[in-house]
């Protein structure tokens, strides 16, 4: 299965962008047909929310302080599922090798995969959040700040996760390895995202939330840059 970048081959920049979009679109199109990834992630996420409800038996007040944490733990675990499956599908169908043959900088593959992984994670979040809202009716839920945090956090998570899953899928231990590799590295995202989410949900003044937002942005920038520089080393043959 060979990849044809959609853009014309005359200008390198659009060639690169075209390649990225081609990879992303391939994943999204395949997923919309089979929906195996999304259904797995969704069912898992909803189950986690359910389990939390029964294991954490909280009254209304206690639940408020815990909402951000519960949601982010859910997204982290569902995200791992998505990352694993996404890469595994790639490897099993031999797409990875095909992509590597394409005459374009390899980091385009990384960005393409990362974007599709991000899309999947966002889709799951977009569905889980209203469900959570209906079940528990938390305050200040639909604030742009809160959604912004969800976006920034997901970006950071997926940036590192895509890179690591590319490595993990090439090892013997595969699926089991990804969370072990990912979680220690992604702690700044989880800490900042939970704190910032909490801040928005409990209506804290924006000044107190800004440090966390800064940290999220810094993390995202640093790790996207790092992944870009290092991806070649991870797919050498």
């Amino acid at each position: 299965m060979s990849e044809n970048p959609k853009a014309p081959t005359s200008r390198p920049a659009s060639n690169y962008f075209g390649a990225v979009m081609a990879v992303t679109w391939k994943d999204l199109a395949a997923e919309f047909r089979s929906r195996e990834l999304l259904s797995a992630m969704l069912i898992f996420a909803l189950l986690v929310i359910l389990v939390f409800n029964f294991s954490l038996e909280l009254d209304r007040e206690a639940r408020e302080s815990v909402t951000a944490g519960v949601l982010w733990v859910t997204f982290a675990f569902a995200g791992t599922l998505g990352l694993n499956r996404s890469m595994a599908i790639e490897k099993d169908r031999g797409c990875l090798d095909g992509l590597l043959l394409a005459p374009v900088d390899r980091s385009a593959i990384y960005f393409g995969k990362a974007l599709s992984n991000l899309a999947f994670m966002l889709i799951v979040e977009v569905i889980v959040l209203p469900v959570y809202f209906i079940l528990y009716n938390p305050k200040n839920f639909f604030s742009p700040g809160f959604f912004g945090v969800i976006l920034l956090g997901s970006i950071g998570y997926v940036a590192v996760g895509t890179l690591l899953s590319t490595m993990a899928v090439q090892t013997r231990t595969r699926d089991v390895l990804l969370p072990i590799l990912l979680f220690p590295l992604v702690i700044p995202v989880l800490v900042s995202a939970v704190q910032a989410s909490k801040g928005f949900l409990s209506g804290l003044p924006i000044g107190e939330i800004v440090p966390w937002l800064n940290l999220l942005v810094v993390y995202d920038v640093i790790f996207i840059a790092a992944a870009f520089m290092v991806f070649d080393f991870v797919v050498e043959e």
Partner: protein
Amino acid sequence: MSTQPRALVALNVVSLLLLAASYYASLVYAPLEAVMGAVQRVFYFHVATAWVGMIGFVLAAVAGILYLWKKDLKWDEISVAAVEISLVFFFIAIVLGSIWARPIWGTWWTWEPRLTTAAILEMVYLAYLLLRQGVEDPEKRARFGAVYTLLGGISVPVTFVSIRIFRTIHPVVIGSGSAEAQGGFNMAPAMLQTMFFAIFAFSIIFVTIFWHRMRLSALANRVEQLKLKVME
């Protein structure tokens, strides 16, 4: 071929002496601290082992980058040795920190920046070793290991900063009067001397252990080569 070079033998002796001296300095030479009592003495080894752990951490990350650049497997061996030794020393540092905390703050564990970051670092190390275990090809193993130490090298300091934005109850040892310094203590000159001596001693000890660990790697390589030759 497997006898120790003379410099290493000398280092062995020196390291043992320095270690003995550190025991003595921390247990006898350093004065008893009035507020915390005897348990304060573990502080010296706590700081010294944490220091060695830091050296290992930095060395592993730098060696990782150098491997990706030079592609010489020697750098990979350096990374592995550094991670392994750092893993052990940070473990000691964490446990000593915990033992120190217990009688002072009444709790075995506090979620404060340094302690938490050290624990996360240990998990990064274990993940690194597990990652390597899952890859058979030595070149790929080295590459993946280097990438992971690089990512870990960036992530751990960022983790530290992010947790530090929480309030901390870790003592600010060298005399601060703020509320954060609740667990702090004023260091008498003899204490300062002991601390610096321990740091110096453990640095030498680190070099010695690191050399031994590298020799172990070299031997393991020779065995691998022999295996390949014999299998033909």
